[in-house]
Structure formats: structure tokens, C-alpha cells
């Protein structure tokens, strides 16, 4: 697909003052004994898109936080528009024209885009003339390539539009240097291409300089002019994208450390049903029906991928299966027995879960890494100790620590130790810790939701390998993902979820992307009968 064709020609944009450049000079940042950044330099040329690549923990976020004033670097300087500046806090960054868009949305969901943008300004008048504000914003948007509905509550926007609104917010706040932290991790490939295309268009027009943190080589190759690669807090390489290939970037990023080799699915999927969902209904947080009778079966040794645009009931489906939400109707069976996600049932049927946003869904941020790793095992030997009638009640903290040290080593979790609160770990390492907890035991059923969301190349390969290995061992895997490529790569069978029901089923080999896309969008070309087990022929 030719992404470049989407870029609006620079000529169609009114010219503004030229965008400034940004330079980080020999930045060093230490946390205690740990050096997160070691004399890292980066040069963002005016009017270009610069990609910042690196694995989890390589120092990308730290570098950006030093630039944005969240952290004060121990050594080094930040140069904006050829002048050295001292940025003490994020507000100061704003006055220098730096704006940052985060991986996670920061707009207030219940407020409209207009309200969000007005409230974000540094000085908001006590009484707001909304008519004037709206006119101002409309005029501003007219100079932008972004089309968004300013009166829509943010909660009703699709992920792509939310991300655009976040970007527009920064531009509205006069950001001339835009820093994007994995901006496409929540977007569909089309949305990602569109958003990045628009941004690149603005850079080409000289109105913006863009620094983009990403893991996706495809985006680097398609949208960036220059690239800087970090590895373990050091500069691993930099230069023009044109001089690089995805392979050379991967080598820079990963270095000589070994990475997991992609694991092939071995053997046909099993035929014995392990997880059977029938007529499942559930409400969302606001009490409205979110699942309208989901029918789905996952066999032993099979990965069933669930595709769909976010907000079509996938979250609720996973929550019901994980025990975080009550079903209103329908049944879930595991191994032929009714399953209500109690601890005893989870243990008997070996049901495990890799939810999205693991820190929010699967961890207690204030508890230690060791404690978090013991969530599945704290009430069984060896962590419980002693005999007698109280035997099952006593915790052995030393045993818990030992188990955690073992998992930390086996799953290469980067932490200061098992006693650190898990909230102090980076996102990827929280994910690894949860992965270690959920996959180190015997698993018969695995519920995974966007398991590699926001992770880098090496971590993604690693986690994919673990999931496929589990499948090869006979685990029934339900994989919910917003990344269609991931599903096509991993799944034995692929279903599409739309408006709280399964509307399409196919295999990756027979998949027709047009049909899948239409089903995801909720308007298949012809009515699709979501009958249980009945395969929809791919065109």
C-alpha cells in the first residue's frame, strides 16, 4: 500500500513561521547507581521527522522526559532553535514550542474536543465565551490538515480521531516541535498511516519538526527522514533513514544479544473443544449491553484470533473470561464444565490471562515484583508453609522471593530486585513479569488481549514465541488484538467481532482483507450470518 500517496501536498497548507530544530547534546541521566542515559545526543533538523528507536528500557522515554523537563539531566544540554535552553518543567517546554503526545490518551473523555482544547490552554479566562472559542478553533483547524468534529465528546471518537485530537491540541498550544511517544500503538494500520502522513505533510511544509518514538520499522522507513537508535542508555547509531534497512536498524537496536527466533505453529490445531462460549451477553461500564450473544469455541492447541475495532465488545469479552465482569446471559464452559472464573476453577482448568494494560488489569502497583508474581501461587506450596489445619494459611516470604528471583532470571525482567514495587518497572518489564506469572505454569486455556501493546520488536517476538509455544503444547489460546497483522501471523482461526458479536470467521490463509475490513467497520457488503461454527466463505 502506498502510504505516501495519502500525504497532503505541502502546497495546500498555508505557510507559517518555519519550525525550529531541536538538539539534545550529550545528555546523561542517572537514577541512583543506574545510568539510564549515557551521553546521548540527538539532532532533529527543522522541518523533518526524526524517529527514535530502541528496545524497552533503552532510554527513549528518559531522553524525551529530559527534553520535556520531566527530568533534569545530570549532564548535557537541550538546544532549541540553535539556542541552549533550560527546561525545568513541562510548562517551560510549552513556552519553547515543544509539545508532547503520549502513548495513552490524555484528553478528558466526557468533555468535547473543543472543551478539552480550551481547557488545556495555559491561561483560561474565568468566563469562557464558547462561541468565540469555537470560531477561533474552527479558524485554526482550517489551517490544519486534520478534520475532527470539535463538538463530539472525546469518548465517542475512534482511536485514530482521539490521537488526532491529541496532536491538534499540541498544535493549538503552539507546539512547533512535536514529540510523539508511540503514537500509533492504539491505531489501526490505516489510521496510523493517515495520522503519520498528515504529520509528515506538515513537516514537509516546514511547519513542524517531529520526533517520534516508535518500535515499528515500517513507520520509520515510510515516514521518517532521520533515525536515532538507542541501546541500553547509549547511542547505538543515527543517520538518514535512507541509509538504513529494517535489518540494519534491528541490529542496531538489539545489538549482539540473542533474540527469540519466531516459533512456527507445529501440527494442526486440535479438534477437542477446550473453551466454549455460547450466547454470551454482558453490559459495559455504563450498564449498556456490550456483548450481544457471543458464540465462540477454542480447541486444544489452537489459537483463535479475535479481530475488531476497539470498543466493539472485545474488552468486555476478555473481562468476562478473566472474571472481571459478570455475564448477564449465556454460558462459558471450559473442558465441558461451566466456568465462572473463580480461583478454584481457574486452577482446575489452568486458565490464565494476559490482559491489556497489565499494570492496570493484572498487577497491584504498590505491591512488590515478588508479590505480583505470586498472584497465582501465593495460596499453595511452596509459598504457603507449615502443616496442620493452618498450614495453608501461612505465607513464606522467603519462598515467594526465591520463586520471583527464578522468574526474573528466566523471563529477563529488568528490575532492581524482587522487592521493588512493580509500578517502578518499565511497561515492557511489567508485561514480562505478568507473562512470567501466567505462562510459567501449566496453561490449558490462555486469554490474551493485545499482549504486545506498546512493546518493542524484541519483546514482541519473544511474547509471540511464548504464545505459539503454549499453543504447540496444547493450550487453547484466545487472542484478542487490534493488530490485524499480529492475528494473521499467529492465528489458526480468525474471527471478527463487531457490535458485540462475532460477525465473520475465516483462516489466515483464506482471509480476505477487504471482507475483514468491512466486517470490522460494521458494514459487511452482504449480511453475514454469525452462526456458530458456520464458516463464512472468503471471497
Amino acid at each position: 500500500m502506498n502510504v505516501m500517496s495519502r500525504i497532503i501536498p505541502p502546497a495546500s497548507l498555508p505557510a507559517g513561521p518555519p519550525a525550529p530544530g531541536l538538539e539534545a547534546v550529550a545528555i546523561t541521566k542517572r537514577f541512583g547507581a543506574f545510568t539510564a542515559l549515557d551521553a546521548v545526543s540527538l539532532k532533529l533538523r527543522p522541518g523533518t521527522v526524526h524517529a527514535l528507536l530502541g528496545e524497552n528500557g533503552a532510554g527513549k522515554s528518559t531522553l524525551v522526559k529530559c527534553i520535556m523537563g520531566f527530568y533534569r539531566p545530570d549532564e548535557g544540554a537541550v538546544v532549541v532553535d540553535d539556542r541552549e535552553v533550560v527546561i525545568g518543567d513541562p510548562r517551560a517546554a510549552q513556552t519553547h514550542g515543544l509539545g508532547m503526545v503520549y502513548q495513552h490518551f490524555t484528553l478528558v473523555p466526557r468533555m468535547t474536543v473543543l472543551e478539552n482544547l480550551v481547557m488545556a490552554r495555559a491561561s483560561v479566562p474565568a468566563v469562557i465565551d464558547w462561541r468565540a472559542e469555537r470560531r477561533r478553533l474552527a479558524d485554526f483547524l482550517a489551517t490544519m490538515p486534520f478534520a475532527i468534529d470539535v463538538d463530539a465528546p472525546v469518548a465517542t471518537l475512534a482511536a485514530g480521531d482521539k490521537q488526532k485530537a491529541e496532536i491538534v491540541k499540541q498544535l493549538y498550544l503552539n507546539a512547533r516541535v512535536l514529540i510523539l511517544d508511540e503514537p500509533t500503538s492504539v491505531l489501526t494500520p490505516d489510521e496510523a498511516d493517515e495520522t503519520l502522513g498528515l504529520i509528515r505533510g506538515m513537516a514537509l511544509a516546514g511547519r513542524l519538526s517531529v520526533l517520534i518514538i516508535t518500535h515499528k520499522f515500517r513507520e520509520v522507513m515510510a515516514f521518517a527522514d532521520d533515525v536515532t537508535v538507542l541501546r541500553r542508555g547509549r547511542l547505538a547509531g543515527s543517520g538518514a533513514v535512507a541509509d538504513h534497512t529494517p535489518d540494519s536498524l534491528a541490529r542496531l537496536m538489539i545489538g549482539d544479544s540473542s533474540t527469540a527466533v519466531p516459533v512456527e505453529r507445529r501440527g494442526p490445531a486440535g479438534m477437542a473443544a477446550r473453551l466454549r462460549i455460547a450466547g454470551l451477553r454482558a453490559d459495559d461500564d455504563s450498564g449498556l449491553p456490550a456483548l450481544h450473544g457471543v458464540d465462540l469455541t477454542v480447541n486444544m492447541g489452537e489459537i483463535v484470533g479475535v479481530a475488531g475495532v476497539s470498543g466493539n465488545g472485545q474488552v468486555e469479552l476478555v473481562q468476562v473470561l478473566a472474571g472481571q465482569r459478570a455475564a448477564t446471559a449465556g454460558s462459558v464452559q471450559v473442558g465441558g464444565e461451566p466456568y465462572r472464573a473463580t480461583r478454584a476453577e481457574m486452577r482446575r482448568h489452568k486458565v490464565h490471562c494476559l490482559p491489556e494494560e497489565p499494570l492496570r488489569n493484572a498487577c497491584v502497583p504498590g505491591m512488590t515484583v515478588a508479590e505480583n508474581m505470586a498472584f497465582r501461587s501465593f495460596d499453595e506450596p511452596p509459598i504457603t508453609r507449615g502443616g496442620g489445619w493452618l498450614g495453608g494459611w501461612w505465607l513464606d516470604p522467603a519462598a515467594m522471593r526465591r520463586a520471583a528471583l527464578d522468574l526474573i532470571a528466566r523471563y529477563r525482567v529488568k528490575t532492581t530486585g524482587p522487592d521493588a514495587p512493580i509500578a517502578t518497572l518499565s511497561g515492557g518489564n511489567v508485561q514480562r513479569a505478568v507473562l512470567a506469572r501466567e505462562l510459567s505454569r501449566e496453561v490449558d486455556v490462555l486469554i490474551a488481549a493485545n499482549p504486545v501493546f506498546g512493546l518493542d520488536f524484541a519483546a514482541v517476538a519473544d511474547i509471540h514465541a511464548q504464545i505459539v509455544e503454549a499453543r504447540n503444547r496444547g493450550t487453547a489460546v484466545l487472542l484478542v488484538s487490534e493488530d490485524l497483522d499480529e492475528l494473521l501471523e499467529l492465528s489458526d482461526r480468525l474471527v471478527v467481532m463487531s457490535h458485540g458479536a462475532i460477525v465473520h470467521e475465516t483462516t489466515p490463509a483464506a482471509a480476505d482483507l477487504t471482507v475483514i475490513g468491512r466486517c470490522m467497520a460494521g458494514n459487511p457488503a452482504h449480511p453475514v450470518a454469525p452462526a456458530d461454527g458456520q464458516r463464512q466463505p472468503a471471497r
Partner: protein
Amino acid sequence: MPPFMHRAVTHLSASVSALAVPAAAVAVSLALFGAFVALVGVDPVEMYQLMYRGAFGTWFSWQNTLTRASPLILTALCTALPAQLGLVIIGGEGALVLGALAAAATGVALNGAPVALVWPAMALAGMAGGALLIGGAGALRQWRGVNETISSLLLTYIAIAVLNHMVEGPLKDPASLNKPSTAPLADTYMIGTLPGSSVHWGLVVGIVCAVAAWVLMRRTTFGFAARMVGGNPRAARMAGLPVGRLLVVTTALAGAAAGLAGMVEVAAVHGRASASLVAGYGSTGILVAFLARQNPLAVIPVAVLFGGIGASGGLLQRRLDLPDASVLVLQGIIFVVLLASEAMQGRLRLFAFATPAAKEA
């Protein structure tokens, strides 16, 4: 720095940091209270000297302090235990009152039975009374979505009304004329004092309960599960934990602690149930729990501190002509300052070196 040392330093600095904020809050409160009494024309230095004497200065004042501390330990547990699950329970007063009423009624009903039977029966009745009230607040929260803070507060008023109704009606001792109360407990059923002091055994009961609560929360699977629910209910559900049951059981245990305080007050101090049981131990217990940062072990010294503040009230009244309630002003100031200082926790630059190195990306 070797890893074990790093661990020790991290641990130590975390403890110091956890201590520093409440200690600073108390110091600021003392300064504010000093300014307050200076305004009414009392020398703050003299006042604090007197307070110290009234609380910890003599063996007599120590005994007074410790006697007051024992119900505070138990009522503080009524707030500190549910706090492990992220609940804010402020119904300790009601649980104490209901527990005292149940214990007194049981003690009177069993008059004539052996002590070895009556004491456990009274204790169980008191604990059941408190458990019913606070467990009720937990159940309302779990199954009806009622805010547990408000329901436990309102249930306290109901408990006090029930006490008043019972001691003025069905359980009234006809002999109690100017102060309605239940029939007095037989002298043999009164809990004695620790040898060589006027401090009753309730202090030991309180300390044992606080230690037991700490062990329960820190060293058992139940406590681990409770802390998971308190830290993140979603994660607890994902682990298949019975969140509702944990919630109700923990609130019931918390209520039982305060109910036991009521039983001790009846069996060691008052000898009967009457309106004088509503003495503010429940509400001071909330303050103790917050100042102890909801740690069941820290509750013990903090309860002693507040027992001392309460004990010194009489001396301030006699010597400085300050109203008896002025120590309540100090308690109130401490609470407000403490709540305001919660925001400071973890932000002090002094402890910045303890920020974990793994924070990254």
C-alpha cells in the same frame, strides 16, 4: 553498593520516609495548637510541659494514658483493617457501643455462670455486635454499592440510638435513676488490672489483637488476598479471588475489634452499659489509624500517644483553666494537618535517592 545493602538502604529510607510525614504532621500541629493556646493567653511552653506531665510524666499519668490507649488500639484497628482493602471505615464508635451493649446484656443474662464461661461469651457477643455493624457496612458496599464511609458513619448513629433505647427501655436497671444504664455486672465478672498497676487487661487484649491483625495482613494468604483487593480489585478478580467475601469478612473482623473494645470498656471500666460509653474512643481511633498509616503495629504506639493527649486534658483544665475539650482541638488539628500532609508522602527531596533505578521507558 552491594545488592543487599541497596535493599537495606531502600527499605530503611522507605521506613524513614513513612515515619517522617506523620511525625512532621504532629510537629506542625503542636506548633499550631501552641499558637492557639497563646491566643487565649496561656503560655504554650508551660502548657506542653503540663501535657507531658499529665501524659507521660509520672507513673500515675502513664497508667491513665495506657488505660485510655487500650480501647484506642482496638477502635483504630476498625479503620486500619478495612483500609488494607482500600475502604475508609469511620464507624468504630458505633461498633464499640453496640459491642458494649451486647457484652453487657450477655454478662447480665449469664449472671451466676462461671467466669470462664462469661468472659468468652461477653467477648464473643461484643465482637458479634461490632462485626454486625461494620460487616453490614461492608455488605452494603459490596452488594448495594453504598459508600462504606457514609454508611459506617450513619450506622454509628443508629448504634448509639439503639444503646440509648435499650438502656432507657428494655434493658434498663430500675435502680439507675439519674443515669439510665443496664444492670451492673457482678464484681466477679470484672476484668482486673495488670499486677502492680491500675491498667486493666484490656491493654494486653489490644496489643495482642494489633499484632494478630498485622500477622493476618502480612503473613497469611488471607491478608495477601486482602491487600490484592485493596491495591487493585481488577487484578484480584483476574486472580479469581472472592472479592465480595474478602470485603465482608475483613469489615466484620474490623467491627469485631471495635466491639471487643466495647466489651473491655464494660467489663473493665464501666461495669455496665450506659450513654457514657459514647466517649469518643471510636472517632479518636480513626485518627490513630490514619496517623499510624493504617499499619496495625504502628497503631500501638500512636494509640499510646493519643491516650496521653487524652489523659493530659484533666491537668490542663485544673492548672491552666483550659476547657477539658481543648485537647480535642489538638486532636482535630493533628487530623487536618495529617490529611493535608498525605500529599507530601514520597515527594520529599530528602528521600529522592531511594527512587528505584528501574524506573525507565
